[in-house]
């Protein structure tokens, strides 16, 4: 549900202490600032109505049984207890993590290489950047439809290639691993260019003198990359990893569109054997197919917890490596 565009990390410097001239005058009452409060109020009102109250309500809901129509029934911790023993939920976590890993590591690797190449290319830089960024702005629905045909068993491009080199065809969208590879390939295709642009911006802040000095000391390109480029790129790498984690762990549209025509029971079921049923797909299935709003809310909080834990682990890993 990528409704917020993803760009800058919310890294915030503390606001400059009373630097702006129209500084707060302690003698004036709060009411005298009403124009300013009115100007920022639309966001906070919307947030209250469609953010804070819903999030609070969903916490309340997760302790109740509710089908969205009848009356709510207090259920205590039972839905969370069920969640912990729900093998479908655990397998959806597994699916999500596998797809995330299959997509993220090749993506970051390819994006880094692309960025380093773009950084040393002198000509056509803008043309390259335009072309590499294009996959990212196209809609997931269109892209998933296109990739569905690339991985189609009967006429897909991948199978045609396999046939051409004399290998057996694979029923990509009908086998557990095939499904995951197809989704991960789609994500890699869509996000490599975006991350390459981010990496490129990071590379451009590294002073050229550093490379000059390394060259004078006789360092080769590979050594330079691992000794200079990579350490200095750690903050940008961290940003990319966090964004990929948060978006990757909440993937929904890719598997939903890609697998909806092979799904037999529901469009949220994630294909044969539920091999492509991610956490968020499972949430949608429980909530909007089974009309189990109470359990759906518990699943949503479960997902939130997984994302938070995983982000912290990621963050720690990258930080730790920096201390060595």
């Amino acid at each position, binding site marked *: 549900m990528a409704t917020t565009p993803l760009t800058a990390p919310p890294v915030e410097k503390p606001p400059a202490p009373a630097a702006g001239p129209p500084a707060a005058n302690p003698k004036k009452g709060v009411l005298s600032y009403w124009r300013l409060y009115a100007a920022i109020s639309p966001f906070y009102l919307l947030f209250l109505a469609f953010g804070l109250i819903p999030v609070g309500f969903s916490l309340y809901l997760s302790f109740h049984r509710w089908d969205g129509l009848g009356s709510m029934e207090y259920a205590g911790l039972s839905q969370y207890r069920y969640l912990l023993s729900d093998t479908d939920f655990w397998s959806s976590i597994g699916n999500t993590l596998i797809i995330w890993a299959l997509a993220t590591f090749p993506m970051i690797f390819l994006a880094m290489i692309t960025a380093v190449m773009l950084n040393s290319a002198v000509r056509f830089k803008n043309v390259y950047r335009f072309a590499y960024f294009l996959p990212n702005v196209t809609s997931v629905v269109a892209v998933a439809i*296109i990739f569905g045909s690339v991985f189609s068993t009967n006429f897909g491009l991948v199978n045609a290639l396999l046939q051409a080199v004399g290998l057996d065809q694979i029923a990509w969208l009908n086998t557990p691993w095939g499904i995951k590879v197809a989704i991960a390939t789609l994500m890699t*295709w869509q996000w490599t260019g975006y991350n390459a642009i981010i990496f490129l911006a990071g590379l451009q802040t590294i002073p050229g003198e550093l490379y000059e000095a390394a060259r004078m000391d006789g360092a080769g390109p590979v050594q330079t990359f691992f000794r200079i480029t990579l350490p200095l790129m750690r903050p940008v790498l961290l940003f990319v990893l966090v964004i990929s984690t948060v978006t990757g762990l909440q993937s929904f549209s890719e598997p939903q569109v890609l697998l909806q025509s092979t799904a037999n029971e529901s469009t949220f079921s994630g294909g044969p054997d539920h091999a492509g049923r991610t956490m968020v797909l499972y949430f949608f299935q429980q909530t909007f197919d089974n009309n189990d709003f109470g359990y759906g809310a518990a699943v949503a909080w479960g997902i939130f917890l997984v994302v938070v834990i995983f982000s912290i682990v990621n963050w720690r890993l990258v930080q730790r490596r920096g201390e060595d």
Partner: protein
Amino acid sequence: MAVTTQTEPAPTEPPRAEPTKGTRIRGTQRRGIALHVSLFVGVLLSAFPFYWAVIMSTHTSTEIFSYPPKLLPGSHFGDNLSKLFDSIDFFGSMFNSLLVAVSVTFLVLFFDSLAAFVFAKFHFPGRRVLFAMMMAIFMVPAQLAAIPQFVIMAKLGWIGSMTSLIVPAAANAFGIFWMRQYMKSAIHDELLDASKIDGASFLRQYWHVALPVVRPGLAFLGIFTFMGQWNDYAWPLIALTNPDNVTLQVALSQLNGVHGTTDYGMVMTGAVLALIPLLIVFAIGAKQIIADLGKGAIR
């Protein structure tokens, strides 16, 4: 893992393309060529799915199902087009998408820049707390709020209409944060002081002093918002309960769900047509979007 390499024929070699100035001219030149060849392979990989979609939109399903796969345009684009228009209300859903994307873009530009102006240039009680609160909202995943949102909108009678898409998206934390960063440096305090001495009200300052200097920032936010709204899928899929009155992405998905295994030519035609407005908007703003994205990440 071994399988992915077949679709992504490892486009590149290790980064040995660091230009070594002066020394071996030959080697440098050869490296330059290798560099552009690798980069070009990457461009092909980026562009190929688009090309293939266009090719498939010009073939019948029988042609698509045959081996070897068609790599050159066929002659059935017109047929696919008329089948597409028979299957879904293409222009109706395109109108809905435009309505949502354009309305949200203008609302976001207005509300976000107004709030950003306040946060960037004024001091008032509670400013820090309100700003920190806004940044925390970034972190809340959408599905946490999804169920109650749906319930609230059902109560308001918005479910099924475009209102359920437009209103909650009318202002967002990302845009306010981003515009604030932009305004902090772009709007000079002296200008604001001068306008205040001239007796300009807060709204006049916003409209006549702030907005004119932050036009490039507004352009970025506007294009970004438009593209995000045009492509949005998960929430519209849930909120637009009337299958005859949906946005383009939802209509496309319905088309794929019903005909996705039988009539690929027609489904592809829909996918290709849906991409066109987006590509136009992206082509207009690409340079700035790419530059600003980079700046955002290393700020």
